[in-house]
Structure formats: C-alpha cells, structure tokens
C-alpha cells in the first residue's frame, strides 16, 4: 500500500460547554487517505464529521491524538507553520452561492490563493489551467464572468478551480454537492473522481450514503464522535456489519418503487454529545443491544469483508 497522505490517529476534539460540561465532538477518530484514494466520511448531523475536517485543517483545536500529513506531524503546528500544508491540502466548501465573492470575477477568485501563497510566476496560465481542469472549458468563456452570471454547478466548479490552482495533493470536500440540483451533482462528483484518478487524495464529508457508495473507494461511518464502521465502499454498503450502518443503509430511499425495502427505523435522534452514553455509545438506540453493551466500549476490529472494520461487541 502506498504511504498515506493523511493519517489521523485517535483524534479527540472536545469543546467546553460551560459548568464543567464538555461537548465530545470528536472522540477518538482514526482514518487515512492515500494518494489516489477517495474516502467518504458519512454520518448524521452532529456526529462530528465536520469537526474532524476542521481539526485536520487545524481550524479546530485538537484536544488529543495526532494528525500526520505526508509523514509530517502537524497536530501542534502554528498557523504560520500550517501555511505550506494548506498549499498542499485544499478545502472545497458546501455552498457555492456563499463561498464566492459576488464582486470578484472568476479570475480574481481563482487567482487569490496564488496571491496569498506568494506564487508570482505564470499566474494567468495557472488560473486558466485550473479552470479547465475543473471542467470550465474553454477558460476564456468563464474567466471574466461574475458569480451571478454562472449556474450553481459552474460556481462550484469555480470554487474547485480555486482549490486546484495551487496544485494540491489532497482535497477536503465538505458536502460538495448538497446545495446543487440533482441534474448537475453527478458532474461535480465525476470531476472529483477524475481528480482522484489523477492522483489526488480526496476526503469527502457527506450525509448521503448513495453518493458515498457511488464515488468513494472507502467509507467511514461516524456516530457520535466515533468511526463505528469503515472499509471498502462496496462492502460497507452491501455487507454492513455494525447495527447502525445496517439501519442507515436500510432507510436510504430507493428510486425503484417496486424494490422491496425493509426500513429499519431507529427511534429518537442522535444523543447530545455532552452526555455520551456509557459503554457502546450506540446502545440506547441499538435494536440488538445486550446488557454488556452498557458497560463495554467497543473498538474497531476486523469484521465482514477484506479491510472492513466495525466497533461492535456483538460481532
């Protein structure tokens, strides 16, 4: 296996919530992203997937654990030390309507990272190359436009071009298509897939299992600050091991109305990360929980197919 680009070990991010209470936003997450690998981090709101991404970008304070990028421990890097890392690891935001400055032409948006990182040579060429790489071809057609002259899909491509202009080795995409119309989503995701094939590592945060199933090589399923299952996308979707993943997969609506589905609907909602349940944190909602699940905290261990792991005592 190739050396991972990004390696997160036992990451913990806690926030104070007043009166000595603590929000356990991320509570021991480990994951890796290799070059040319597309990893999806899936889970419901509040499971800690965005906090994990923020910690990786060092936009959230890490309580414990380590984050290694290209073999370099960046966990305690200062903002200044992070600069060259940010050159390598770029973010793609969720909302292409909010993330582009309406007064900036496409050129200004895409050139800005070059200015910030002090890249002075061949700026115009780099901008054009980035636009074309993001599927805005020919670049001349788009380079002088304002965001309001572009569709949602095109805006997201501009935003991706701005991430690509520094020629990063990894992209971190937080719900990159959730604000876009169904008809253009596949285009953006296909673009991410192309970039992966060209050797970039991609970590995508999403709540949409179907998207993860189609585009990711590996899926990590998060619940209440932990990865409860991870493995090859195909295995996690077709052969889920953890009761939470099984339930999640079962409730995804299917386009064929005749396909028999047995949705296994869990009661209630994800508990508040201030009061994490004892033992297995999923036990209060788990349909198959036993007495020992209240006391023992399960760790990820091999289960199911090759390279698949789940954190459940009953496997």
């Amino acid at each position, binding site marked *: 296996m190739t050396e991972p680009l990004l390696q997160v070990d036992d990451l913990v991010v806690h926030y104070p919530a007043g009166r000595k209470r603590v929000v356990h936003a991320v509570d021991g997450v480990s994951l890796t992203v290799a070059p040319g690998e597309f990893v999806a981090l899936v889970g419901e709101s509040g499971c800690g997937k965005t906090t994990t991404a923020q910690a990786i970008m060092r936009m959230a304070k890490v309580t414990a654990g380590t984050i290694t990028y290209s073999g370099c421990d960046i966990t305690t890097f200062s903002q200044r030390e992070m600069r060259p890392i940010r050159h390598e690891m770029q973010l793609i935001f969720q909302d292409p309507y909010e993330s582009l400055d309406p007064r900036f032409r496409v050129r200004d948006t895409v050139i800005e990272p070059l200015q910030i990182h002090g890249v002075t040579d061949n700026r115009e060429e780099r901008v054009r190359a980035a636009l074309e790489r993001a599927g805005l071809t020919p670049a001349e057609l788009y380079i002088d436009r304002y965001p309001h002259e572009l569709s949602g899909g095109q805006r997201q491509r501009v935003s991706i071009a701005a991430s690509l202009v520094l020629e990063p080795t990894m992209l971190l995409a937080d719900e990159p298509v959730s604000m876009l119309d169904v008809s253009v989503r596949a285009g953006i995701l296909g673009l991410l897939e192309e970039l992966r094939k060209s050797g970039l590592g991609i970590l995508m945060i999403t709540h949409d299992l179907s998207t993860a199933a189609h585009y990711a090589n590996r899926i990590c399923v998060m619940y209440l600050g932990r990865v409860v299952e991870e493995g090859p996308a195909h295995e996690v979707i077709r052969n889920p091991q953890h009761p939470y993943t099984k339930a999640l997969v079962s*409730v995804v609506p299917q386009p064929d109305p005749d396909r028999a589905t047995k949705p296994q609907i869990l009661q209630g909602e994800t508990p508040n990360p201030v009061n994490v349940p004892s033992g297995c944190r999923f036990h209060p909602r788990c349909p198959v929980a036993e007495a020992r699940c209240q006391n023992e905290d399960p760790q990820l261990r091999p289960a199911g197919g090759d390279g698949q792991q789940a954190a459940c005592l009953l496997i």
Partner: protein
Amino acid sequence: MTPVLVIEGLHVWFELPNHKELHAVKGISFELEPGERLGLVGESGCGKTTAILAMMGLLPPTASAAGKIILDGDDILAGGDTTMRPHRWKDISMVFQGAMNAFDPVKTIGSQIQEPIVKAKLAEGKAARLRTAELLELVGISGSRQDRYPHEFSGGMRQRAAIAMALACDPKVLLADEPTTALDVMVQAQILKLLVQLTDDLGLAMIMVTHDLPLVSQVCTRAAVMYAGEIAEIGTTHDLYHKPLHPYTRMLFSATPDLLAEQTVRSIPGAPPRLDQPLVGCPFQPRCDSALTVCASEAAPLRTGPDGHRAYCHLKDTA
C-alpha cells in the same frame, strides 16, 4: 372515486420590475383522489412550489393566477381570496419548506398549534388545548409537551409539530413542500413513515413537493415531473421509473445515485431555460439526449399510456 382536487390549466405569472413577466407555471392539469399521495418533482425553479402556493391562495401580490382549482366540485380560484379563504387551512393545508424553523421562539409549541384552531372557531380554551394534545399525539409527540418552547424540541420533533399544525383544522388535502429536506436520513425515514401513516389513517390526500426522486418512489403512488413550468410527465411511480415516456424523467433518474445499483450516474448537461422569455418548441430540447429536429420548433404533443400516464414529447417510442 371523485377526485378531491382537480387542477385545470393552472397558470401563474410574476410581474417583474422591468414590465416583463415571468411565466412560472404554464397551464398544468392533474387530479388528486382522496387519500392519494402524489409527488411533484423537478429541479429548482421549475414551478413546483409556485404551483402549490397558488393552490393555497398564498402567492405574493406580484403574482397572478389563472385556470381552475376545483376542490370538491367548486372552483376556489374563481373568486380570488374571497373563495380561497374559507378553504385555506380547513380543506387544503400546507407544511411549508423549513416549517420546523418557522416557529416563533418565544411562544410555546402548543399555543402556536392552537392559533388556527381558535381562528377557525373550531374550539376555544380547554377544548382547544385538548385538540392540540390530540394533534401532537397523532404525530407521535406526547400531548403533555404542548407547553414546551421550540428550542426544547429537536429538528425532527419540530417538523412533526409543523405537520400537526397543518392538520389542526382537519383538512382533506395536505400540501407538503420538501418536508424532509433539512433532516437527517433516519429522521427523514421517521417523518416519511408518519406522512404515509397519516394519509392512510385519515384518508388525507397529499401532494409532496421535492427534488428527490427516490423519496417520491418510496412515498407516492403517482408523480408529476415538472420542467420549466410545465408537467413534462405524469404517471404512477412504477411507470415513471420502469417505462418513462419523457427523456427528462429518464435522465433525472440516471442523474440520481442509486445506493444498490452500479449503473453510472450521469448529469444532465446545461441548465433549465429562463422563464421571462417566450420559449419555442420543447423547453427540454437543448438538454435532451434524444431530441429530434422538430423538437426545436414545435411544441411537444401529448403522449398517453395506460393508468393515466401522460407526457409531452415528440418521441414515438419509450424514452
């Protein structure tokens, strides 16, 4: 069965500041049987929300509507607000998009659900409280929680409360605009199950507006696919998925990732047309993968199939 709601040639125009007009809904027609669940799907800007706002008589002042909205045999659009008002909330009711975030934070959930009950003079005082408790129980929330404030409810519970509020006056038709959009998959599954249960138990007819085809396949028996203000195709969800007559329907399904199928997901090139200019030919023609020469110049004819399957398309064979 006599349909509870008949929409006949419904048009909606918006007046634009530059004396132009935007033709948002272009003569759509369909029927809704009692207890039926109909999906209204399409991309943003296709006119689906405008259409159901017209059915509620809640269009903004810059909009004008024409056509017929026949509720239980009476055209309620004919007399404008005078004929709309007696039916609004009582016979035809709506759960707005983002309704769960629209509760007044300084009033209790119960007092907000009571408002339409008291306004419609259905009950007062203690009786109104009782009715509120009953409504909350109906959507799976303990009636004793009616004195709680919105912030004490989770997103899923607020959405249930919004549904309870829409049911306050015992309507015959429920219009639900993206009822699960901001919710997590598991909560979404809970709310969809609730909507199916409510329509089954109360004999309530529902129109569900969404951009999400799989949701419609799961919940509705029939669906209308809207494009550029028109109904491109309407039929049973089975026929739409297995035997679409309109390429747009087929292309929308192939743009939607299917959890368990390995088929390639394909986006639809281009974007929907602007509706402030007159369109010639089939509005989908520039994006269509099977367009003929005639599609660019002539309006698409009606094609029909069994079970009320209708589509507007020049193609002769299945899409």
